[in-house]
């Protein structure tokens, strides 16, 4: 299977009040075409920073010290802003943990989706609106007309996450990075969103990098898992391997944590 994305020796530092903190060190990972990969680890282990570094949308006090991120053979970290703008959204799209705060509060859902479609596909407003409706029905929103006219605060968390997924898919990305997309949702909605993501992936055929601390989810959807701990990848392998014979103590911790919850 050909690689869509390959990260080599990525190193990211943070500048915290004059001190340098190594957030990500020597991370290597690859994502194949149409593959689902899970990046697991506890809070603060560098999962999100690794994901944000892939399109260089890190916070302003973070800097990429070294490494390469090859997307379809080209190094993203060496691109200028113009070619980078063509990668963001169009090649690599993100969905995040708190969908409501990732939507602009002063515009309706419709205005935001239509803007993204017009911007990325150069369509007219009327056509973009039609496509927005199609996208919303693709993410299983039944009353799309009403949702288009709503503001983010008028919708539930699960609804906003569906909207955000629709917006990310508007640009037909090759890779969708889902950063804990279900952590803020309740369990039934979480299951629905996961099912939706898996179905959409089959339908449309993008690759999925799923970031989570919940190995139960990883077991359900991933073909391969990377486990991060304190900024490093401490274990990687096929999902089955990881669950049957975890090598690193942190992986065992994560697995036992989820087994404990399972027993409750």
């Amino acid at each position: 299977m050909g690689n869509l994305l390959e990260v080599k020796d990525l190193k990211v530092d943070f500048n915290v009040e004059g001190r340098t903190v190594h957030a990500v060190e020597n991370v290597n990972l690859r994502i194949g075409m149409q593959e689902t990969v899970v990046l697991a680890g506890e809070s603060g282990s560098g999962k999100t920073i690794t994901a944000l570094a892939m399109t260089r949308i890190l916070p302003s006090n973070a800097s990429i010290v070294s490494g390469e991120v090859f997307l379809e053979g080209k190094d993203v970290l060496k691109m200028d802003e113009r070619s980078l703008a063509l990668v963001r959204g169009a090649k690599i799209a993100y969905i995040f943990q708190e969908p409501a705060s990732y939507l602009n509060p002063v515009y309706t859902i419709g205005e935001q989706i239509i803007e993204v479609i017009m911007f990325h596909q150069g369509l007219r407003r009327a056509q973009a609106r039609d496509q927005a409706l199609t996208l919303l029905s693709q993410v299983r929103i039944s009353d799309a007309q009403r949702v288009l006219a709503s503001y983010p605060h008028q919708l539930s968390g699960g609804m906003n996450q569906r909207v955000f997924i629709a917006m990310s898919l508007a640009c037909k990305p090759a890779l969708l990075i889902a950063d804990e997309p279900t952590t803020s949702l309740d369990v039934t909605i979480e299951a629905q969103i996961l099912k939706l993501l898996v179905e959409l992936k089959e339908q449309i055929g993008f690759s999925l990098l799923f970031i989570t601390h919940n190995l139960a989810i990883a077991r359900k959807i991933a073909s391969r898992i990377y486990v991060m701990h304190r900024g490093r990848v401490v274990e990687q392998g096929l999902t089955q391997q990881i669950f049957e014979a975890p090598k690193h103590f942190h992986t065992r911790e994560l697995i036992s944590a989820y087994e404990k919850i399972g027993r409750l």
Partner: protein
Amino acid sequence: MKNPYLFWGLAIIVLFSCAALCAPWISPHDPSFIDSQNLLMPPSAQHPLGTDGLGRDLLSRMIYGSRISLSVGIIAVGISILLGLVLGSCAGFYGRLADTLIMRFADVMLCFPTFFLILAVIAMVEPSIYNIMIVIGLTSWMGPARLIRGEILSLKEREFIQAERAIGASDARIIIRHLIPNAVGPVLVNATLGIAGAILLESSLSFLGLGVQPPIPSWGNILIESKSTLGIAWWITVFPGLAILITILGFNFIAEGLKKIIG
């Protein structure tokens, strides 16, 4: 009533703006017609607010004067808000050197008392209505710029801005489409207060004879002409003064009402 401040503020300003717009039709007399038979007449049926020292109808002069005062206020603030938006959002968004340069320049501008800065400029250029609008605009952008910078600084760290960046939006697009609309609330409040300030400033300048030049009437220069006859003709001082007071009150009410809506 849910928002009496906004209601009364808007009522006052709409009324005054309509009067200004319809000046030629609602003025009882020609504002510059000199009637030497009727000098310093107190308010009467023919001249509802009396006449001035040249026998000109005070009500008509005030209606025409409101055109000058209101448009100076609005255009001067328009200029200062525009400058403030551009400079403030650049400073807030780009930070570092741009921020230092722009905000230190604003600090320097704030060090000069605005009034003397304006006097100095007016001393060099001709004191026409347009110059006064521009000068007031150019010397009052610092407040809005600071306000916008502060808003942008906190907004740019918000998640939806990161999301915009993640879908490939350019800096200009993020600033214009996403940051400024979110920052516009406090700016609007500031602008309404600014209009009141600009009207007061124009009146003061005209009062000193450096503002709008006679025979064009503005509230400020009607006041200065009343100075010499203050003892015998109170109405020429009181009515323009009241007009300025009520207009500024109106704009302050609107600002207060907007503050309540924006929260």
